[in-house]
């Protein structure tokens, strides 16, 4: 993967090849991150396609994706490297007699006993890989500071082995759900990308690409329904693109040609994952109300198209 001569069109076609519908607002930051060899920090609501970008990059550039899933309590051992204690123990027992202590120690702290975790794996990879650091906001500040150092130099010091520097700087994708404010230092070193919920037109395109069996009318109605739920109902968890696709697939399974109230009733659990949200929906809009709202929206869009 030669990024020095990468063009915007190549990135765009890479995304298209992977079936990820993206416009310039996504393509340009990704292109810049690749060309400037900087990590890209992607934020946005859950399910808008943040993690998918890392997968798309790995697919488009035909390289490996190394994923570090962050969680509360994640530390260096689980992210960088760890010594294989069990193996070291067995080795000690096997060579207990007849070998000098110094030799044992040298053997025990060699590469054979090193368990590479995602960060070290990415640094030591024999080619340029995509390193996905998912949900960085779930870690604590200490880990963030540590990560920040690794991402600055792409080298790691292991006391027993010395400094290991990367041969190929990996493409780093960090995702953030915004649960915690990240440090200014980390943000400063990244190219920033915010992914919003897609427009109706873009969502129709996504549905058609990901669920090709769906009819034109149904795709449009699904997109309108989701758009309405996101913007007009005060939900705790707004339906994301993945939930839109679940709904579209379910409707295809039902053999639906258009969205009807009974479909909404049957599939509402795919869209809303919180009991309070479902109650709120039934109370404020309801399946029949949603269909009516879609119809109104469609009429308005048609009107706008005619008069503008």
């Amino acid at each position, binding site marked *: 993967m030669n990024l020095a001569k990468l063009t915007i069109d190549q990135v765009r076609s890479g995304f298209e090849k992977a079936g990820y519908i993206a416009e310039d607002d996504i393509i340009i930051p990704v292109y*810049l991150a690749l060309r400037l060899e900087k990590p890209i920090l992607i934020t946005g609501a859950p399910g808008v396609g943040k993690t998918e970008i890392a997968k798309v990059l790995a697919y488009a550039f035909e390289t490996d994706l190394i994923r570090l899933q962050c969680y509360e309590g994640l530390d260096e051992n689980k992210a960088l490297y760890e010594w294989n204690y069990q193996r070291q123990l067995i080795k000690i027992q096997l060579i207990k007699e007849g070998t000098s202590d110094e030799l044992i120690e040298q053997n025990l702290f060699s590469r054979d006993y090193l368990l590479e975790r995602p960060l070290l794996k990415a640094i030591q990879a024999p080619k340029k890989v995509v390193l996905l650091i998912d949900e960085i906001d779930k870690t604590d500040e200490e880990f963030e500071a540590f990560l920040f150092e690794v991402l600055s130099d792409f080298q790691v010091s292991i006391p027993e082995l010395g400094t290991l520097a990367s041969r190929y700087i990996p493409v780093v994708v960090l995702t953030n759900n915004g649960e915690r404010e990240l440090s200014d230092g980390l943000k400063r070193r990244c190219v920033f990308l915010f992914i919003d919920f897609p427009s109706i037109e873009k969502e129709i395109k996504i549905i058609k690409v990901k669920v090709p069996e769906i009819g034109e009318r149904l795709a449009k109605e699904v997109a309108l329904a989701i758009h309405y739920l996101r913007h007009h109902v005060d939900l705790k968890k707004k339906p994301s693109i993945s939930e839109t696709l679940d709904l579209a697939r379910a409707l295809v399974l039902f053999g639906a040609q258009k969205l009807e109230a009974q479909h909404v009733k049957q599939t509402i659990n795919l869209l809303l994952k919180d009991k309070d949200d479902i109650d709120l929906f039934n109370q404020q809009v309801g399946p029949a109300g949603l269909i009516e709202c879609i119809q109104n929206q469609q009429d308005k869009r048609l009107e706008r198209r005619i008069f503008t």
Partner: protein
Amino acid sequence: MKNNLENNLARFVRILRHLGIKVSIGETITALNALLLVDLLNRAHVKAALRATLVKNHDEQLLFDQAFESFFTIPEVREQQREEWEERKTEGARLIEAAEEELAYQGEKLDLTEEEKLLYAQLPEAEKKRIKEYLEASYLPEDRYSRFKPMLEYQIRGSLRYWKQRLAEEDELLYLLNEDVDDEVLASVLHQLGQEDSNLLYEDMKRIGERDLPKVTNILKKLSRKLATKISRRYRMSKKAVKIDLRRSIKSNVRYGGIIFKLKFKQKRVQKPQILLICDVSGSMARYAAFVIQFIYGLSAVMKHIESFIFAEELEYATPFFNQLRPLEETMVELIGKSRIWGKGTNLGASLNALKTNYPLLLTSRTIVIIVSDTKTLELERAEQELVGVKRLVKDILWLNTLPQDEWKDLRSVPTFQRHCRMFECYTLAHLEKVTRKQFLH
């Protein structure tokens, strides 16, 4: 071309910084490198490149968009903006000159700043007349004149300060000096940005109309949710400064034949803080009342065990109003209807004393007290003493001050209270967002 690009970028970054967006030199250099990689004639690409490299927060991106549209505009519009700015500058200079003529004491000009003179020029005619008459009536013989002049200037300054606040509240200040900006392009763009409908986040909360209240409620809910998530999360303690947990260490190392390879450490249980909100609903804060209620409403909706009080001359317990999960409008009507203190004078000292006396169990070492007030109160010394008393009992006191920071220096109450708490400027939703982010979410 390259020089122009660098120059324009530096000016644009300066505008962003004026708007409160932090942009480092490193980020500016990255932005310049990014610009060299995109088609400079493609406006959308330039915008996307600058947005990705200069702004690292979604809310600030909205501000960035406005700044970009104003700064990177076609030359004709830019020229028009510049001409308008020039006209305003000339008019401002004329007003200052006229004010100088009028503000004279015994034929000698008063020692007032340009800003003060400009402010005088914008006063209502009746007020100008009153000041002029006062000056004329203050005639003194030559020997006492030099001693009396500074006192006279001090009085006029005080009056102008009062009017500055009042005219700003009524949006009637048309000419403001911006001494930081010497570049006319920057000045015209900043002026242009000031004229535009600002984003709700950056709007002074007292000016947010009823029409926008639902949007504000949503923003506050989002903020409250973030706050609640953070508070309910327990981060694991690091290996530093904690004790070894021998029992867990032995247990987890049984698999290595009893040889202790991995140490386990005692983890400190992170206790959730108890939030206690005290909101000023006195006359001077009346215009923030809607925001204050929504703030408590939003927080109460997502966080359990939040205690809320409102105060003016006295303290009133408000938690029950927010615990019933009713719509905001109903809560607001009931609270205002039942409150005996709404819109009255402020006595923070008496209110804090009532809090200590009547609700001692709420003030513990886990309690974080958040005070929302403009600091204007009766019995300042008593209020200070009571605040110190509360400070001793609780974990921390955060003060969200609804006065703009540049007015803090004019009030004695601000430094008095600032000594005993952490005070933050908080009159827009963006301020509130920033305080929440920095104090709770970091």
